[in-house]
């Protein structure tokens, strides 16, 4: 018999393809990028016209805070976002559910949704201004409309993916249609609806800026538009940073909600 010591070890071929959370990686990338910008602009490798100096953006931010202008811009934006997105998401979930549940409505509405989904909603802003006036209502409408279509698509997809075996189980125990909807379909569709909301709310933030570019005195969009037309890059970037933070905040909130209500997920 051969000596086991003569053999060579079996090479390892497994591993990988299993994403795991690495908490420090995200912040590290941010810090590196910002540090590179700072060093680049200070040494002159990057000209001041190409990118603003991050420290200058921070100073702009601090002065926004000090003068109280920050809240004057952020508060109306947040309320527009909240009202518009709430309207759009509620309507979207409602319509998505009816599409998911009723074949006739599905056959009738899916092509309509497919037709309005690719329209850049920004292009419709003048129309909304005529319909709802230049005030808040047209802004709500634009944000709501933009949130609506992706929510519909996510919702009926989520309803389609609810385990039919569970629905048959409900029927076999004689549950009423309403009970099956409330206790089986809705909770089963919730994961899909929530992940759809991540997309819808990001779109809502994009449209918020678009809506505020017309007829708004205060708001993050108005602030960015003003800075842009003056080529004031520091202020432009300060505004954009607020939007990014808003997006991160929304994402984080949905993540928290998911962790709370989807504790049952394997």
């Amino acid at each position, binding site marked *: 018999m051969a000596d086991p010591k003569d053999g060579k070890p079996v090479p390892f071929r497994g591993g990988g393809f299993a994403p795991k959370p690495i908490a420090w990686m995200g912040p590290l990338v941010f810090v590196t990028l910002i540090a590179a910008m700072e060093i680049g602009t200070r040494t002159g490798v990057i000209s001041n016209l190409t990118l603003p100096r991050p420290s200058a953006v921070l100073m702009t931010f601090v002065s926004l805070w000090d003068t109280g202008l920050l809240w004057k811009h952020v508060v109306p934006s947040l309320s527009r976002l909240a009202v518009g997105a709430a309207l759009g998401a509620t309507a979207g979930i409602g319509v998505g559910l009816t599409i998911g549940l009723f074949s006739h409505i599905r056959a009738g509405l899916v092509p309509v949704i497919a037709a309005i989904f690719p329209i850049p909603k920004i292009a419709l802003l003048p129309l909304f201004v005529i319909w709802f006036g230049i005030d808040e209502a047209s802004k709500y409408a634009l944000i709501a409309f933009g949130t609506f279509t992706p929510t519909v698509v996510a919702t009926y997809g989520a309803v389609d993916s609810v385990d039919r075996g569970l629905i048959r189980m409900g029927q*076999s125990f004689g*549950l009423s249609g309403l009970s099956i909807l409330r206790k089986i379909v809705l909770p*089963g569709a919730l994961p899909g609806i929530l992940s759809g909301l991540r997309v819808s709310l990001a779109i809502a933030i994009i449209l918020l800026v678009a809506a505020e570019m017309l007829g708004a005195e205060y708001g993050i969009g108005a602030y960015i538009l003003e800075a842009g037309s003056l080529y004031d890059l520091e202020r432009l970037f300060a505004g954009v940073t607020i939007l990014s933070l808003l997006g991160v905040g929304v994402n984080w909130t949905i993540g928290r909600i998911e962790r709370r209500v989807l504790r*049952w997920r*394997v």
Partner: protein
Amino acid sequence: MDLHLDQITHRYDGAPVLDGIDLHIPTGRIVCLVGPSGCGKSTLLRLVGGLERPSEGDIRQIGTPPDGCLNPLTYVFQDFALLPWRTVAGNIALVLEDHGLPKSRIDAVITDVLARTNLSDFRDALPKQLSGGMKQRVAIARALAVEPAVLLMDEPLSALDSQTRELLMEDLVGLWTRQAFTAVYVTHNLDEAVRLGHRIVLLSRRPGRIRDIVEIDTDLADRRAGQADLEEKRAHLWSLMRDEARAADAELVTHG
């Protein structure tokens, strides 16, 4: 309550899956349906419980369900069909909530069925925390909660490993011995059939027809794995099923 099946024929898109099934399911007995895979035994069970309509023939309930019965024909599914977002107690409550029972009554029923299935300690657990055997116990507890006239069991132990299957068979025998229930029990496992069936109905491969009916008179509680008389019945059933199973295995799949 007895069930009576009269000349049941069923077709999917014109292709027959069941052909002329006549069957009587007497109260207080367990009728096992066995057959090679794809013979339509699960389809027959769905017809019996009204989840599908037979193409021809009819299925009748004879007599009235017992008092307090909330759902005469009650399924136990192979994949358990538990709501993952509800606890053990919540899953049982689900099938009681629609009947306008007072909360105290619902709680009492849940406590009772959990005690009967030895699950009292798992009342607030979520399905993801339970093993397969425990999940199926919950599904059985849920079925018992509605006091069914007939239990319709669709390969209830097929998703479980063999040790768990043995334990659950003992549980089912225990439940039946304490209070005889009526059941139609679909399985492809002949060991389960001879351990749990009073009457074993062997179906041929598609289109399913009744090949043979075997009666076993030994009391359920007296049956043991590998017992001589059971082994003999099992061998008889396997000799009939063997060629059917081989032919069925070699067939091309025509539909899901």
